[in-house]
């Protein structure tokens, strides 16, 4: 075991101050990506700042037509929340399909969004529903947040405090999970929003992205048949031992159709 400093602040301000004072700090939420990386010595921060004692980060609130989910709320809390089921049921359904029970009991929404794994489920909901990411210093629209593989608009030391979702009943998420990890081989979230239809795809490319071709045809005719005309290009799709680029491009259409059919 190598040494690192462990901190457990109880306010956001203290957490950020500790981060800034340390040489190479990491915030610790559920730890489901960070701890395995540390065990493998693929990451060796000098300071770990545990966020679990900051009460305000663990709350779920519905107010002013939006649903505010604190960054350390776990996947199982989202899946089981009555407030979430009433205000944005798609989120509860999505959270209940992440990983396995152990992952859902520890993993957090803020950790998932900050890490922005190319195959994570939450980024599809954040981008597809047009949510915004609330941090200790500003609020970032989802369209500006996800930039590239593991790359977000977060500055060094910037801490996500909550995700603000619009309340909606007209949205669905369909994914083709990897049978072992339950990561999305391809996951598609389709939502009817005030600004038109939004389609966000995770797992298929370096980062979650909006399928604008699909959005256009669905705005004219919201049906599975209309969607059948769209074929996504496989040029920038991921290819690995589980699925090739062509296959992933095809799955995007299949999963989008399933999501549309269930709205």
């Amino acid at each position, binding site marked *: 075991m190598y040494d690192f400093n462990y901190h457990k602040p109880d306010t956001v301000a203290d957490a950020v101050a500790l981060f800034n004072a340390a040489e190479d700090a990491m915030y610790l939420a559920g730890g489901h990506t960070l701890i395995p990386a540390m065990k493998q010595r693929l990451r*060796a921060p000098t300071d770990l700042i545990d966020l679990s004692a900051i009460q305000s980060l663990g709350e779920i609130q519905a107010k002013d037509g939006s649903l505010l989910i604190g960054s350390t709320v776990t996947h199982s809390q989202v899946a089981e929340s009555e407030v979430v089921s009433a205000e944005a049921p798609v989120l509860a359904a999505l959270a209940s399909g992440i990983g396995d029970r152990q992952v859902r009991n520890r993993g957090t929404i803020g950790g998932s969004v900050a890490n922005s794994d190319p195959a994570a489920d939450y980024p599809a909901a954040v981008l597809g529903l047009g949510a915004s990411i609330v941090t200790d210093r500003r609020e970032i629209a989802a369209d500006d947040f996800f930039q590239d*593989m593991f790359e977000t608009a977060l500055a060094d030391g910037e801490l996500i405090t909550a995700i603000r979702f619009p309340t909606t009943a007209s949205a669905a998420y369909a994914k083709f999970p990897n049978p072992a990890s339950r990561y999305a081989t391809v996951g598609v979230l389709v939502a009817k929003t005030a600004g038109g239809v939004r389609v966000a795809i995770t797992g298929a490319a370096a980062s979650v992205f909006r399928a604008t071709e699909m959005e256009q045809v669905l705005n004219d005719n919201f049906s599975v048949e209309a969607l059948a005309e769209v074929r996504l290009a496989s*040029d920038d799709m991921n*290819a690995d031992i589980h699925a090739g680029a062509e296959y992933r491009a095809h799955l995007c259409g299949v999963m989008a159709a399933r999501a549309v059919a269930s709205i």
Partner: protein
Amino acid sequence: MELTQRLEIPVSNQVVWDALNDPLILMQCLPGCQRFEATAENCFEMTVQAKVGPVKAVFKGEVMLTEMDPPRAYRISGQGQGGVAGFAKGGAQVSLVPAGTVAQPATLMTYVVIATVGGKLAQVGGRLINGAARKIAKQFFTEFVRIVCKQEAMDVVIETIQGEG
């Protein structure tokens, strides 16, 4: 993994070739490169801090330029040891074809990127190697074009010809 991409650079073949052989430019293009020093002709030592998602490791290794065919083609290859993280090996076969006119020179650059990793990196990051290699190639060649064109915020369009593996 293997990735073939192509892009057009609005400067002459010779300018691109000279830049491809300039260690200072290569160092600036490689994300996280902290040291890039010549040790012999077409041989360099480097230190790179790689950060991809949860992984952050310092790689020490060497870069070699081989199969020199000035000003048309070469192979740049590098390998590094990241301590307990494992090792990474990667490179690109680069070829240049003049594409413009005398008044408006341009160069069509095609490159084939190959990358492999071993050790713990391969165990935990297997599903991410392709994406990481693509991302590094994109960063490298985008920065390269911006430097040779002396335009910091230039939009660089890269066309993927083949990318499987």
